């Protein structure tokens, strides 16, 4: 159980809730919480590069504070070509074609939480906070930067490859609806 939890903490990449794990694995939530606390203690005793922290009602695996500067250096060394992970590329593609767009809109297309990758894209200066959407909550709308155009060798956004092909097997109605939607979203 503890080994599995350790593995799951690693792959999850977000705070892990004992209740959710208990439900999926069909065990008691208290057993999950107990195992997680035990694991947390082990990590503290081992004194390695990682720790387990309690965050937002959950447990999350994280690096230790003292390595923050070195990690930042290693992740973004000067002169090293920037790299984009698959999730980041997916999110960027959605921003590029649907901009300006909110995180919730990106997530609704990708089907997974996307605030993390969006933060990466902001850090890499691929997207910026364009404006706020005129709906309750006024969520941030993101758009691509001139750096984005530069990296992808584009002159203007109009140079992006046409989205047409994706509709190839759909009929004209679908095309019409999506154009309508694009119009509404950009309003």
């Amino acid at each position: 159980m503890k080994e599995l939890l350790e593995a799951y903490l690693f792959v999850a990449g977000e705070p892990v809730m004992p209740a959710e794990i208990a439900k999926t694995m069909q065990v008691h939530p208290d057993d999950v919480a107990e195992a997680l606390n035990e694991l947390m203690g082990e990590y503290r005793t081992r004194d390695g590069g990682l720790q387990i922290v309690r965050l937002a009602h959950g447990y999350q695996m994280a690096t230790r504070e003292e390595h923050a500067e070195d990690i930042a250096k290693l992740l973004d060394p000067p002169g090293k070509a920037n790299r984009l992970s698959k999730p980041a590329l997916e999110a960027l593609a959605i921003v590029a074609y649907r901009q300006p767009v909110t995180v919730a809109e990106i997530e609704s297309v990708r089907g997974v939480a996307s605030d993390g990758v969006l933060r990466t894209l902001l850090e890499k200066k691929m997207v910026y906070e364009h404006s706020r959407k005129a709906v309750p909550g006024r969520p941030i709308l993101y758009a691509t930067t001139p750096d984005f155009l530069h990296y992808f060798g584009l002159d203007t956004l109009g140079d992006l490859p046409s989205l047409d092909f994706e509709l190839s097997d759909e009929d004209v109605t679908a095309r019409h609806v999506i154009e309508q939607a694009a119009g509404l979203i950009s309003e």
Partner: protein
Amino acid sequence: MKLMAVALPILNLPVFEGPLDLLLHLVREHKVEIADIPIVLITEQYLAYLQSMEERNLTLAGEFFVMAATLLEIKSKMLLPAPPSDSDEDAGVDPREEIAQRLIDYERFKALVPLMQELELDRARLFFRGQGAYGDEYELPVEFGTVSAASLLSALSKVLERADTGDHQITSVRRHRLTLRLAMHKLLACVKENGSDGLVFEDALLESGQTHLDIVMLFLALLEMLRQAMVRVEQAAVFAPIMIYSQDLAGGSAVQ
């Protein structure tokens, strides 16, 4: 009375990837060495197989016929009396040699396939950090400069495809169209069902909408419903889940 479907005799013929695959199968069946193919017999069986394929109206690629011609050529060479040899080099050449070499070469690579499948499956048992966000398969990050604008498009279409093949995918022929009115109706029903708990925005879009057209439609419906003040949308904090509430319940929740 209903007509009974006539059962076709089952021909238990394996599917062959190509002429070399078929030839290798025939050679193996006779348990002979590749270098010593009984060419007359194998050629006959090869042709018989092609014929049976044609009778079953299966389209045969040209490659199968090219191989048939090659086999026939070898066969005729084998049957002809050896020409008086002018030189020593000519004398020892077996007309089957080239095809034997190709078969040996092909067999080696064919044998690699199950091994590679094993490696593929073993590696798929490893999960990496943030795997949840990768969807189906982990991929190495791409380097800027090697990423083309076309890869953006393919990334987008992959996401849309994934939205298309959700768990609740309808296997029947997809011809239904979610109209805007229908989408609004559906969404409102969902929102009302959730009552004062509210409906999570992403759930609203992904729960019922399987095709990307459906997602777009539901999204449109939400915008339209907001415009008509049929629903209320709230977000507690940046990045917090966006909640949809029915306006009908506005008074009800205030009573508490």
